[in-house]
């Protein structure tokens, strides 16, 4: 399964839709596409840096201090990303609010750092971390797309040149299904997507068994 390290995070080991990790920021920032992209980028950056740093620092940190050390490490990296975003993308930082800082105690990041710090191969570590980060971002983006298109009738991206950053969906922006942009809608949608993922996986497993047997 070595070659599956990256792809697994996108599909069968998707952190959000299969393991339901990192729900707190996922539910909170998935109402706008731009927020989902911003948080996803933050998660990928922190995850890659934290996994690499933890893997390299592990020999010099005593075993019983490691969990605390990882916590400090992740918090420091999140602060870095936070400060960089404040400097270069203040508007996005404003939108994300406290949820960017909350990545410091994100179960997805901490869990992955803890797990991968023991791994032998650094490149496999990085591929796994990248896969998990990308899987999280893709799932978040999917939820945000559905929520924003149906819940507000818009797609918010980043303003670029003459493009204002907001695409209006014709027809829907007049009477959007506002519940979907509220917290209840996020839970509802996540439930359906997780159920869909479970169904697809069950079907995949059946097909595998059939081909094996």
């Amino acid at each position, binding site marked *: 399964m070595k070659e599956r390290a990256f792809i697994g995070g996108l599909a069968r080991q998707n952190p959000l839709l299969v393991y339901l990790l990192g729900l707190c920021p996922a539910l909170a920032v998935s109402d706008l596409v731009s927020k989902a992209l911003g948080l996803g980028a933050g998660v990928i950056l922190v995850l890659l840096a934290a996994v690499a740093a933890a893997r390299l620092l592990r020999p010099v940190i005593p075993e019983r201090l490691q969990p605390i050390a990882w916590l400090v490490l992740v918090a420091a990296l999140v602060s870095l990303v936070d400060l960089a975003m404040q400097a270069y993308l203040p508007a996005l930082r404003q939108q994300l609010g406290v949820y960017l800082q909350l990545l410091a105690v994100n179960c997805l990041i901490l869990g992955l750092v803890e797990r991968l710090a023991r791994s032998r191969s650094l490149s496999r570590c990085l591929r796994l971390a990248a896969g998990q980060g990308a899987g999280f971002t893709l799932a978040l983006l999917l939820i945000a797309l559905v929520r924003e298109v149906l819940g507000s009738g818009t797609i918010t991206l980043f303003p670029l040149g003459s493009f204002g950053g907001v695409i209006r969906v014709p027809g829907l922006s007049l009477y959007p299904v*506002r519940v979907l942009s509220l917290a*209840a809608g996020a839970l*509802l949608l996540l439930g359906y997507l997780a159920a869909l993922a479970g169904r697809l996986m069950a079907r995949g497993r059946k097909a595998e068994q059939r081909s094996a047997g």
Partner: protein
Amino acid sequence: MGYGPGSALRPFPAPHLHEGPTTAGMMFSVVLCLLPAGIWGVLLFGQRALHVLLVSVGASLLTELAVSGLFLRRFTLADGSALLTGLLLGYSLPPAVPLFIPAAASFFAIAVIKQSFGGLGRNWLNPALGARVFVMFSWTGPMTRWQAPLAAADVLSGATPLGLAKEALSHPVPGLRGPIELLLAGLRPSGLRAGPLSDLLQRLGRLAPAGYGQMALGNVAGCIGEGSALLLALGSIYLFVKKIIAWEIPAAYLGSFGLLAWAFGGLPFGAGLFRGDAAFHLLAGGLALGALYMAADPVTSPLKRPGRLIFGLGCGALTFLLRTWGSQPEGVALAVVLMNMFVPLLNRIGGRPISREAEQ
């Protein structure tokens, strides 16, 4: 209630006498009992109300057919539950809503609230009420545009009685002692349209003090089927007699709500304790529809008497709190939906399941 040895109710082996009640039979009885109020609503609000009812029932049946056909490969339309859900949903919508709202609400009720959780009997919210809450929060604007009844002799247009009361709470009117005075102040004695209906309304309205009479008849702005507390109550008598709905829930609901409205309803108007207008609050809004037909839904209400009483009390208290201090004038739907979530907990009160008792 015990089922053990010595109690009047004891499980016996077959053969049993069977009265022959079926799910479909129960559903269709409820639909029949609801019909008078719906016909009355269509008479009061006109053709538009009929369209809303038809769309909500039609969309509900179609969704049921599609979802059960696609995912369950089973035909479940005949159990009548989709028809009842669509009808209840239509009753709880304002007559002037854009027609996509009843369609979306019916889809949500059947596909999301009922079938996603396993179909009839496994839903943990009343489908009609849950869908009403869904459309209320999604399209608040269209859902709070009201229309006065067509034959509105002696009635004010636009605002619902509860809306008026809410308005008075946020902008106090000097000298006002209760919500009914607002309604009476808005009464227009000149008949808008003379006809058999307005004649009938006027004659019937005289049986009770003006404002209360019109409210009991449903001759005020409001949702299509919730207006006439009188017709809804008449329809429910059959359901009580046939024990299709448990009497404990509406009794505890209306009782606790009436008591609270009487005891504390006067406070916001500066009238002091025990000066509230319980009759106004009992007749206004969707309370009759909610308490008699929705809270007592056998799927989403507790199984045993103590649980049912607590369930009713909770509904009554929450409705009163939401109506008096909530941001919306009406609180029935939210109160019942909230209490629906406590049903699994309430089912643990009042004795163990029969089978376990019999084992010992």
